[in-house]
């Protein structure tokens, strides 16, 4: 085991897969000479050269589309979009092409590609640079959606994503790149998609946290235990499509309460979706309405004060958890 930052773990995942498979290559804006806007591709150009680590023009739809074509032609592109925000410029290629091609051509073509994109708020980047769009990609059949919160998961999920024969939306969080964590040394640590992690066991309330909010959920659980004597079970789904609903439902059947924490917008969000699934499939086990904690329904404001007010924090999660327990404690 080694202690790595998230960005290093992701870099190692790409480097290992590139050593393993000649067809794997990386392309995106400033991924080669500049070594990545967030330094995730640091060192790749030096090791693998310009053929396999390719700087692209600022042309998001074409970057993704070129990846789609290269994947159909037998390669395994790892495409970096500088941020989730800019992925909106590539929605046509992601939704109408990458996701649809295997189905609409009845399996005659496959699109084994990974589209990496960091997102999230908290850096005073304002309305166009702070999106959390997990829910948007979650909606699209044909895509897989990963959202790792720890360096170990980041590495193992990215390796799995690169080996998978489907298009994968791989959402990273800008605030997590510096997070340190134990990561297994080089080997074949590949995490299967659709396996949630139970970060903390508890019997009073289930808290599901997505991406960075998995960490916030854990912090809230610690506070709930210390200050309120409440034992929360914290689940990090790690992938949203496929979703390990079984693990979540099993927990809810035990705790009879659920809180979902995400950074994205509330309407049609990950939480809205998951709350419905829980209500549909574990209604008889619920002792309280499912609670959602989400980002505010606004475009992310620049002002640090307003921005922090728009992002979910530990206190919000604690409050939502306690709300599910009203009258019970």
């Amino acid at each position, binding site marked *: 085991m080694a202690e790595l930052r998230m960005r290093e773990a992701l870099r190692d995942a790409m480097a290992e897969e590139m050593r393993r498979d000649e067809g794997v290559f990386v392309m995106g804006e400033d991924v080669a000479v500049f070594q990545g806007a967030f330094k995730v591709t640091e060192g790749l150009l030096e090791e693998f050269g310009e053929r396999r680590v390719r700087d692209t023009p600022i042309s998001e739809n074409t970057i993704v589309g070129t990846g789609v074509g290269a994947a159909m032609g037998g390669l395994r592109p790892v495409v970096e979009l500088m941020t989730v925000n800019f992925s909106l410029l590539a929605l046509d290629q992601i939704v109408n092409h990458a996701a649809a091609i295997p189905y609409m051509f009845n399996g005659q073509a496959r699109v084994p590609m990974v589209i990496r994109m960091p997102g999230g708020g908290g850096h005073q980047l304002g309305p166009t640079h702070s999106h959390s769009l997990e829910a948007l990609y979650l909606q699209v059949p044909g895509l897989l959606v990963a959202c790792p919160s720890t360096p170990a998961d980041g590495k193992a999920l990215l390796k799995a994503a690169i080996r998978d024969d489907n298009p994968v939306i791989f959402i990273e969080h800008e605030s997590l790149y510096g997070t340190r964590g134990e990561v297994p040394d080089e080997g074949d640590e590949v995490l299967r998609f659709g396996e949630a992690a139970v970060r903390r066991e508890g019997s009073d309330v289930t808290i599901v946290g997505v991406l960075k909010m998995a960490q916030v959920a854990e912090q809230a659980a610690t506070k709930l235990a210390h200050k309120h004597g409440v034992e929360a079970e914290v689940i990090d789904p790690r992938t949203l*499509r496929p979703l390990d609903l079984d693990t979540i439902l099993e927990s809810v059947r035990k705790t009879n309460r659920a809180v979902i924490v995400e950074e994205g917008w509330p309407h049609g969000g990950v939480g809205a979706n998951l709350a419905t699934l829980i209500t549909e499939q574990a209604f008889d086990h619920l002792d309280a309405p499912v609670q959602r904690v989400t980002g505010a329904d606004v475009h992310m404001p620049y002002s640090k004060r307003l921005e922090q007010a728009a992002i979910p924090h530990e206190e919000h999660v604690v409050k939502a958890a306690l709300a599910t327990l009203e009258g019970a404690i």
Partner: protein
Amino acid sequence: MADLPDAAACYELLSRMALIRRFEEEAGRQYQRAKAGGFLHLAIGEEATIVGTTSVMRDEDFLIGTYRTHGHAIARGTDPKRVMAELFGKVDGTSGGRGGSMHIFDAENRFMGGYGVVGGNLPIAAGLGLASQYKGEDAVTVCMFGDGASNTGNFGETMNLAALWKLPVLFLVENNLYGMGTAVERHSAQTDLSKKAEGYGIPGARADGMDVLAVREAVAAGIQAAREEDRPTLLEVVTYRYRGHSAADPEVYREREEVEEWREKDPIESFARRCVEAGVLGEREVQQTREAAEAAVTAAVEFAEASPEPPLDTMYENLYAVSDSGAWYAVDERSPEPHRGEREEQMPAAARELAEAGAAYAEQPEEEPRPNPAVHGDAQDGVQSRVSPEHEVGSEAEDVRPEDERSPERAINTEDGD
């Protein structure tokens, strides 16, 4: 004027063009019979552009096109039966009835797809070219798109990327003078589309798309540049479609005389005439190409009629590739139990019931034959505003207030102004 190739090559060119013509005419007829659904974009008039191009491609080369590509697939070698079955939405169609007219695909013949979104195929072509180059293979990608696509962001982005990376791709604009119903001089500031190459530092060329030999010559040069020098070219081929943009096109944007003028330059008739006059083919052989086309298309319709409807249990097939490393499932949330979605036995009862209930609607017979929008004008109905002019927009509209789902019970302070 390009020299005529030998008799066998002339016969082949003429046969392919005749087959596409006859196929498209029949597709139009089957659309009227409501055997083919959705949109139907016919390439009648554009046969020389298609056949001239494919006739100088190698088997290993890739062809990628638009939503008007029944003929492109057939020219590449796809059995017309399978294309017709796709139009009928049948299981033996090129995409098993999932793609329809706009999304023909044939991996075996390296026809890499019809694409429904204008310009959507351009970056994919660059990717196919990149894959060939990356693997050190000789294949060239020919990317065909319409004049309208030359205005999309994808066009500029892809030209730049392909030029920058020296990709072995020939970009071929099938300029049929209209982007749907908008004439080229009304949609493009530069009407000589080949000149759009200049900004990307790649060669631009123009050819007569009604002359199959001119197209052959120009495409061969572009392919050679791509194959031997890894150099992309933008080739504009000027052609014309006799039918509307799609079958639902009342053609209010052009005069009948214009269509007649172009029919005079018919690519099939003119080539047949030239072959006969030069003594390369006889009248009898020309007639044979027509008869062969007729027989092939009749067989295609019979085949498509007889082909079964796609079974409901195939609904989820190929949505995802289930690989060795991946242990995950297609999950249709309408059916609570996650299922693999690969085979009927794995399809949970709830999902099957939903599928069967929905499919029952497909069995309801059409009440009357599909009206021809060009004649009956129903395509124009949608253009008419359903809102009468005196009705003030917004007069009855509800005030839309920001609604933050995080706090359903809390009044939002933007209501103050009410």
